[in-house]
């Protein structure tokens, strides 16, 4: 992913987002940040150092009032600012769902296109070491369901930076989901002002036998699963969506028409999850090219439990992707 001159910097996912925030805030003084504890860097260090550089007029410590964080974000966005609102754990967006669903997502359309809502909602999601029911969810399916919201979910520092930069530059509300388990993961980020456009999937591995479609932390599990499948003689192609809305269906379909077999994997609950949308789109548009019924991988239908053996039983990972791949290959 290096630039043409090949220079990259190694940093964590979290640091990469800080880097994106910094570029955006230096370039455009309409960009402000709203969130709890952000003076201190936020719960995952994803705002570290911003207060020092940009001051309290632009880095605004919010009370524990999620509805107001979002509402203020919407009000500021439709009157000339470009707020980034931090919701820490994604579950806390639920206290602001009215503002997200009824205000942010609908303003532009309902008011006949008079305004846009250039607002980024950053939230940390996913399972991290027994955080239990109220701090482990992946809720992207709630957001992707809503017309008017864009939704991205990167898995590596380069995309973390590039997608956040694109999200802040976008004129619509973007939900930016950062999985807790990968916030500390390090990787190369292209030097300079690296941007990844919304709506572009990435082919992480080419393969002839089946297509694995995934995003966020599940990409890391899928990479390992692909290596294991290769040892079994199964050649998987791995597509990381990166952006769920807008969805880069072309990249997915161009793979599926070659392989004819699909696994769609996410950490969110399988039932009613975003994977169903992907499978439906594939089935609708490439039905005659499929050689097996697509298989989904997702969490079992229970709140995420605390105890490690229970958490492991509910939350999918590498093993479940391997099993699903073997299933679409007709091997079990």
């Amino acid at each position, binding site marked *: 992913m290096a630039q043409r001159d090949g220079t990259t910097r190694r940093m964590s996912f979290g640091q990469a987002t800080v880097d994106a925030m910094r570029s955006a805030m230096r370039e455009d003084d309409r960009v402000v940040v709203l969130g*709890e*504890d952000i*003076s*201190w860097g936020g*719960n995952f260090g994803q705002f570290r150092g911003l207060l020092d550089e940009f001051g309290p007029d632009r880095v605004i*410590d*919010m*009370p*524990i*009032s*999620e*509805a*107001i964080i979002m509402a203020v974000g919407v009000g500021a966005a439709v009157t000339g600012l470009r707020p980034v609102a931090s919701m820490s754990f994604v*579950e*806390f967006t639920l*206290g602001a769902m009215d503002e997200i669903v009824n205000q942010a997502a609908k303003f532009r359309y309902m008011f006949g296109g008079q305004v846009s809502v250039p607002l980024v909602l950053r939230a940390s999601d996913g399972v991290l*070491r*027994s*955080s*239990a*029911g*109220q*701090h482990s969810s992946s809720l992207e399916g709630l957001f992707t369901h809503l017309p008017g919201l864009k939704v991205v979910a990167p898995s590596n520092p380069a995309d973390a930076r590039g997608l956040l930069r694109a999200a802040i530059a976008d004129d619509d509300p973007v939900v930016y989901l950062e999985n807790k388990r990968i916030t500390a993961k390090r990787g190369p980020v292209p030097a300079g002002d690296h941007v990844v456009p919304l709506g572009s999937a990435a082919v992480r591995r080419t393969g002839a036998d089946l297509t694995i479609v995934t995003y966020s932390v599940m990409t890391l599990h899928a990479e390992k699963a692909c290596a294991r499948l290769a040892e079994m003689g199964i050649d998987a192609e791995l597509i990381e969506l990166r952006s769920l809305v807008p969805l880069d269906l072309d990249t997915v379909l161009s793979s599926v028409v070659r392989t004819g077999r699909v696994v769609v994997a996410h950490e969110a609950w399988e039932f009613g999850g975003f994977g169903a949308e992907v499978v439906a789109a594939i089935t609708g548009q490439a039905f005659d090219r499929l050689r097996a019924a697509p298989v989904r991988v997702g969490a*079992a*239908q*229970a*709140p995420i*439990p*605390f*105890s*490690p*053996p*229970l958490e*492991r*039983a*509910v939350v999918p990972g590498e093993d479940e992707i391997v099993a699903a791949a073997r299933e679409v290959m007709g091997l079990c």
Partner: protein
Amino acid sequence: MSLTETMSPGLALGIHQAMVRIRLFESRVEELFKAGELPGFVHTYIGQEAIAAGVCAALNRDDYITSTHRGHGHAIAKGMELGPIMAELYGKATGACRGRGGSMHVADFSVGMLGANGIVAGGLGIAAGAALSARYRGTGQVAVGFFGDGGINKGTFHEALNFAATHRLGVVFVCENNQYAQFTSRLRTTSVEDLSVRAAAYGIPGVTVDGNDPAATYRQTLEAVARAREGVGPTLLNMETYRFGGHYVGDAEVYRASAEVQARREEDPILRWERTLTDEGLMTAGAGDAVWAEAGEEVSAAVSFAEESPYPEGGTALENVFTRVR
């Protein structure tokens, strides 16, 4: 006013015992967490013991409480046994919630403990609902909703107070004002310095209480509970205190000066209560030591119980999602 005018000697000693049990339980939790024995993350109650102990001493066993992410102290003071709480923190099948909830979700409905809660101020409307239910059922039970100085800015706090006040529900809203919400001083995010004044907006009494003095936390709760039981309505109690540890175990605490922490630790509410009890002739030095020793043994027994208990089977993970699937 001498202490014995506020409470009986037995109650004064009982509150001391509760505080010591919470302190030793939480100290052990801290050690166990640092040693990697406990999954997840834990928020300890050390420094705030006079609130849970004093408030719950003013309640009946069948009264309700709703708790917070910092809930172990409430659970202990409301009468949960230490073994099932500790086993829950370990994620064991014998835990109070069968290992499903962990530290942030300990609960025991049989003693009116309606749950620790990972959502800030998430318990306040639920406390109002429990009070509504108690009145409808004619049981005379009341509900206490615990929350923090951070929780007082959540919309649910304001909505719960308005509703409870409008319907004169039997709720006591107990703010444990430990000065910080995570890393942020309350002074940076809150419009008023004295949190009790927020009661005025809802036409109910608001009282600021020394939250490190069990005589005060007990007496003020007793008055509020009387109003609650008689149907006069809710009360907001702003109990001033300080958490001795970080927000969670492992917090680097860069947001507060260690001199500040040190000064507050010197006002240890348990030691202060022991001095009061000694001055009032209610406790001899030896008797105090015996309470610590006994509580220490009880905590050790809870740890053994937890360690010897099995983990839940992965195959049971989908139990209790619904009462009945169809």
